[in-house]
C-alpha cells in the first residue's frame, strides 16, 4: 500500500491536473483536430454504462463489509444514474438532447457522489435500500422523456457550440465531483485504503472532465480525451473492486475447507468414542451412529441409519418412551436399557441423551450416548467383597487409629500448652526487651552524666592539686617561720633569765641598803639622846647655856629628820623590795610563758610538718585522681560507644522478638486449632 500523502498527490496529479495540462497542450498543438465517429463514441459510452452498472452492483452486494461503507449507497446510486443516462446518451445521434443527456448525467453523478459527505446512519431503512432502484427508475424515465420530448428540452447545442446553460451544468457537475473527490481523499488519509484513493481519482477525472467541458467542442481532441479518461477510470475502479471480490471468494473457499476439516475432526471424535453414540430424529429414526454402535448392534451403519431406534432393544417401548422423554425434557441421564445384538447377545447400558438444535434454535433431534455396564455389574460384586474386607480392615485400623489419635491428642495438648508457654515467654521477653531498651537508653543517659561528672571531678582534682601545692608552699614558709619563732623564743628566755638574775641582785642590794638604814637609824637615835642631854646640860648652865641649848635643839632636830628620812628610805626600800618580788614573779611567769611558747611553736612546727606531709600526699592523691578521672572519662566514652552498640543490638533484638512474638502467636493459634481438630475426632 502506498503512503497516503504520496497517494493523494498521485490522484490529484493524474486525475485533476494531468488531463487539464494534456488538454491544453493538445489544444495548442492541434486546435482543429476532429474525429466524427459516432459508433466509437457509443461503444465508449456503452462500456462506461456497463462498467458503472456492474460496479454499482458489486458495491451494493458488498455493503455488508466490516468497515463503514454507508456512503456506498450514494456511490452506487450515482454510478447507476450516470450509467443509465450515459447509455441513453450513447444510443442517440448527436444533437441537442445528446448534449442534454450527457450534461444531466454529469450533474446527477456529481450530485450523488458529493452526497457521500452526508452519512447515512440507518443502513437498514427501506428508503436507503431503495435509493439505487429509485435513481435507476428516475434515470430511465428521464432518458425516455428526453428521447420522446426532445423538442421541449432547453437549447444546449447551437451551431456545434455549447450553450451557456450546458457549460454551467457541466461545470456544476464537475465542481460537485471535485467536492466528492475531497471527501474520498479525506477518508483515504485517515484509513489508508487504496480503494478510497481510487474513488478520489475517479472523481477527479470526472470533475476535471466536467470543468473542461466549456473549453471543448463536440468531437474535438479534448472531447475524446475526457471520454477516454473516464472510461479508463471506470475500468481501473472496476478492476480493483473485482480484485477485492476475488480475494473475498478465495477467503470463502479457505473458510469452507477449514469447516470441512473441523467437521472431520468432530466426526473422528465421535467415531473414537468407546460408547455407542446415536442421533435420533423426532420421528424415532436413527440419523447417525458411530462404529461402536455398529459393533454393539451387529448391524452396519448403512442399515442402521434410517431404521427405527427402538427396534434394537429388548424393551422397545421403554426405549421409545426414553427418547420421547428426551424430546419433552431436553435431557435424560442414566436411563437403563438393554441393547440386543443381531446374534441375540444383550448388553446392559445406561443412556445419557440430550436434544441438539440448529442455528435458529429449533430442535433437530436427540443425541444419545450409551455406556456399557455389563463389566460394571460384575465389578460391583467384586467390589462388594472388597468392601466387606475393607470394612473389617477399617475396623481394625480404626482401633489402631484411636490409639494413635489418643497419642496425637496427648501430644497436641502438650504442644498447645507448650505453644501457650512459648507465647507467654515470648511476650515476656518482648516486653523485657522493650524494658531493656528503655533501661539501655536510661543507662546511656546516666553514662553521659557520669562521664561529665568524671570530667568535673578531673577538673576538681586538678584544682585540689593546685591548692595542695600552694598549701605545701605555705606550710614550708610556715615551718620556717615557726623555726624562727622558736629561736626568738629561746633568745627571749635567755633575756628573761638575765633579767631575773639582775632583779635578784637588785633585791640583795636592797637588803644591804636595809642594813645601812638600821645603822643610820641607830645613829640618829643616839644623836637624839645626845641632843637631849646637851639640852639638859644647857639648861643647867643657865643663861650661859642658852646658845648651847639652841645648838642642842638643832642637833635634835637633825637627828629627828635623819630618823624620819631613814623611815622614808625604809618605806621606799619596802616598796622596792615588793616591786622586785613582783618583777621576779613576773619574770618567772614570763619565763614560763616563753617555755610554753617554745613548746607551742615546736608543736606548731610539728603540725605544719604533718600538714606539709599530708598536703604532699594530697597532691599525690589529686594527681592520681586526675589520672584516674581521665581514664574514667575514656572508659565512659568506651561505655557510651558500647551502650550505643547494645542499644542497636537491643533494637534488633526487639524487632526479632516482635517477629518471634508473632510467630509464637501463630504457633499458639495453630496449637489451639490443632487441639480443636483433634477433639473433633472421637472414635
Amino acid at each position: 500500500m502506498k503512503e497516503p500523502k504520496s497517494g493523494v498527490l498521485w490522484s490529484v496529479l493524474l486525475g485533476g491536473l494531468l488531463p487539464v495540462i494534456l488538454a491544453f497542450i493538445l489544444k495548442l498543438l492541434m486546435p482543429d483536430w476532429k474525429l466524427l465517429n459516432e459508433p466509437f463514441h457509443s461503444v465508449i459510452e456503452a462500456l462506461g454504462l456497463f462498467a458503472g452498472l456492474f460496479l454499482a452492483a458489486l458495491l451494493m452486494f458488498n455493503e455488508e463489509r466490516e468497515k463503514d461503507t454507508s456512503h456506498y449507497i450514494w456511490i452506487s446510486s450515482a454510478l447507476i444514474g450516470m450509467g443509465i443516462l450515459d447509455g441513453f446518451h450513447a444510443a442517440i445521434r448527436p444533437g441537442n438532447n445528446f448534449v442534454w443527456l450527457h450534461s444531466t448525467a454529469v450533474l446527477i453523478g456529481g450530485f450523488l457522489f458529493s452526497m457521500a459527505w452526508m452519512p447515512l446512519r440507518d443502513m437498514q431503512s427501506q428508503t436507503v435500500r431503495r435509493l439505487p432502484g429509485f435513481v435507476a427508475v428516475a434515470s430511465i424515465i428521464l432518458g425516455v422523456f428526453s428521447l420522446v420530448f426532445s423538442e421541449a428540452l432547453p437549447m444546449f447545442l447551437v451551431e456545434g457550440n455549447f450553450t451557456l446553460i450546458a457549460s454551467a451544468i457541466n461545470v456544476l457537475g464537475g465542481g460537485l465531483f471535485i467536492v466528492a473527490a475531497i471527501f474520498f481523499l479525506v477518508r483515504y488519509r485517515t484509513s489508508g485504503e487504496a480503494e478510497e484513493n481510487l474513488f478520489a481519482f475517479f472523481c477527479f477525472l470526472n470533475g476535471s472532465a466536467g470543468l473542461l467541458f466549456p473549453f471543448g467542442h463536440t468531437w474535438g481532441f479534448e472531447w475524446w480525451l475526457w471520454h477516454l479518461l473516464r472510461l479508463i477510470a471506470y475500468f481501473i475502479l472496476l478492476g480493483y473492486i473485482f480484485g477485492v471480490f476475488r480475494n473475498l471468494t478465495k477467503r470463502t473457499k479457505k473458510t469452507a475447507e477449514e469447516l470441512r476439516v473441523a467437521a472431520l475432526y468432530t466426526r473422528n471424535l465421535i467415531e473414537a468414542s468407546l460408547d455407542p453414540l446415536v442421533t435420533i430424529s423426532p420421528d424415532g429414526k436413527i440419523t447417525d451412529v458411530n462404529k461402536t454402535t455398529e459393533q454393539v448392534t451387529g448391524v452396519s451403519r448403512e442399515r442402521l441409519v434410517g431404521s427405527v431406534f427402538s427396534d434394537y432393544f429388548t424393551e422397545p417401548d421403554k426405549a421409545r418412551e426414553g427418547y420421547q422423554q428426551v424430546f419433552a425434557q431436553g435431557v435424560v441421564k442414566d436411563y437403563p436399557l438393554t441393547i440386543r445384538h443381531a446374534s441375540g447377545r444383550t448388553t446392559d447400558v445406561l443412556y445419557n441423551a440430550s436434544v441438539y438444535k440448529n442455528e435458529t434454535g429449533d430442535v433437530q433431534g436427540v443425541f444419545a450416548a450409551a455406556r456399557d455396564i455389563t463389566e460394571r455389574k460384575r465389578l460391583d460384586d467384586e467390589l462388594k467383597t472388597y468392601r466387606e474386607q475393607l470394612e473389617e480392615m477399617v475396623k481394625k485400623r480404626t482401633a489402631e487409629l484411636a490409639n494413635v489419635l489418643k497419642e496425637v491428642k496427648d501430644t497436641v495438648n502438650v504442644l498447645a500448652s507448650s505453644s501457650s508457654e512459648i507465647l507467654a515467654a515470648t511476650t515476656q521477653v518482648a516486653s523485657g526487651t522493650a524494658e531493656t531498651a528503655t533501661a539501655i537508653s536510661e543507662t546511656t543517659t546516666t553514662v553521659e552524666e557520669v562521664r561529665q561528672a568524671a570530667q568535673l571531678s578531673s577538673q576538681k582534682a586538678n584544682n585540689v592539686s593546685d591548692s595542695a601545692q600552694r598549701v605545701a608552699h605555705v606550710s614550708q614558709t610556715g615551718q620556717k617561720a615557726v623555726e624562727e619563732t622558736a629561736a626568738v623564743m629561746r633568745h627571749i628566755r635567755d633575756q628573761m633569765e638575765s633579767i631575773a638574775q639582775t632583779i635578784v641582785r637588785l633585791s640583795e642590794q636592797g637588803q644591804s641598803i636595809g642594813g645601812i638604814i638600821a645603822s643610820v637609824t641607830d645613829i640618829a637615835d643616839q644623836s637624839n639622846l645626845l641632843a637631849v642631854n646637851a639640852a639638859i646640860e644647857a639648861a643647867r648652865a643657865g643663861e650661859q647655856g642658852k646658845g648651847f641649848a639652841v645648838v642642842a635643839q638643832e642637833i635634835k632636830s637633825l637627828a629627828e629628820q635623819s630618823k624620819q628620812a631613814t623611815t622614808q628610805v625604809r618605806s621606799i626600800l619596802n616598796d622596792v623590795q615588793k616591786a622586785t618580788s613582783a618583777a621576779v614573779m613576773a619574770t618567772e611567769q614570763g619565763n614560763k610563758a616563753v617555755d610554753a611558747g617554745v613548746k607551742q611553736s615546736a608543736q606548731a612546727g610539728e603540725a605544719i610538718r604533718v600538714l606539709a606531709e599530708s598536703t604532699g600526699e594530697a597532691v599525690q592523691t589529686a594527681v592520681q585522681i586526675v589520672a584516674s578521672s581521665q581514664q574514667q572519662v575514656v572508659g565512659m566514652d568506651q561505655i557510651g560507644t558500647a551502650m550505643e552498640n547494645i542499644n542497636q543490638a537491643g533494637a534488633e533484638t526487639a524487632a526479632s522478638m516482635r517477629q518471634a512474638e508473632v510467630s509464637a502467636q501463630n504457633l499458639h493459634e495453630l496449637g489451639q486449632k490443632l487441639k480443636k481438630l483433634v477433639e473433633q475426632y472421637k472414635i
Partner: protein
Amino acid sequence: MKKDKVTTPPEQGAKINWSEIRQRVEKARESLERGEAPSPKEKGAILKARARVLAREAEEAGAAREVLDIIEFSLAAETYGIESAFVREVYPLKDFTSLPGTPHFVLGIVNVRGQILSVIDLKKFFNLPEKGLGQLNKVIIIRNDRMEFGILADAVLDARPIPLETIQSAPPTVTGIGAEYLKGVTGGGMIILDAEKILGDEKIIVSEELT
C-alpha cells in the same frame, strides 16, 4: 590563731616606751648621785625654811612670861613630861642587870660610865595597867640632892620649855596616878610628873631600908 598569739607580744612590746624608761632610770641615777651633795639651790631652800622655824620659836619664847623646862617622853602610849632640872641625862638602856629581892617596880641596875644606878619602871610603880609592849630602851636619869636613879621610857621625845599657865591640875580619875606625883596636865594631854615628889617618895627609900 596561733599566728596571732605569736605576733601579738611584739606589738605589745612595741607599746612599751623603752626610751622613756631609760630616761627615767637615768634621771633617778642622777638624782641619787646628787642627793649625796645637795645642789646649792636646795641647800638655800633648806636653810631658809629652818631659819623661819627658829625665828618663830624665838618670838614665842620671848612672849612667855614664865616657863618650865621639861623633858618630854613617851611611856605606854602616854606622853609624859618631867622637869629637866631633875634630869641628869638620858641614856640608852643597855647591859642592865636584874636584881633579885627588890620591889617589882625595880627593873634592875645599869652601869652608866662606871656609876651603878637602879632603874625603875614607872608603870609598875604607879600600878598602871599594862597596855602593850613598849620599847623601854631609854633610861632617864633623875636626881636631887638625896636620890639618883633612872626611870624607863619608851622614847625621849623632846627637851623644851612650856608655859606654866598651860599646866592645869588634873583630876585624879584621868590618869590613874596618885595626884601627889603629878604637877598637872597640859592642853595637849601631856602629863607633867612631879620629879621631886617621886625622888622623895618613901617607897623607894624603903627599898634602901631593906638593904
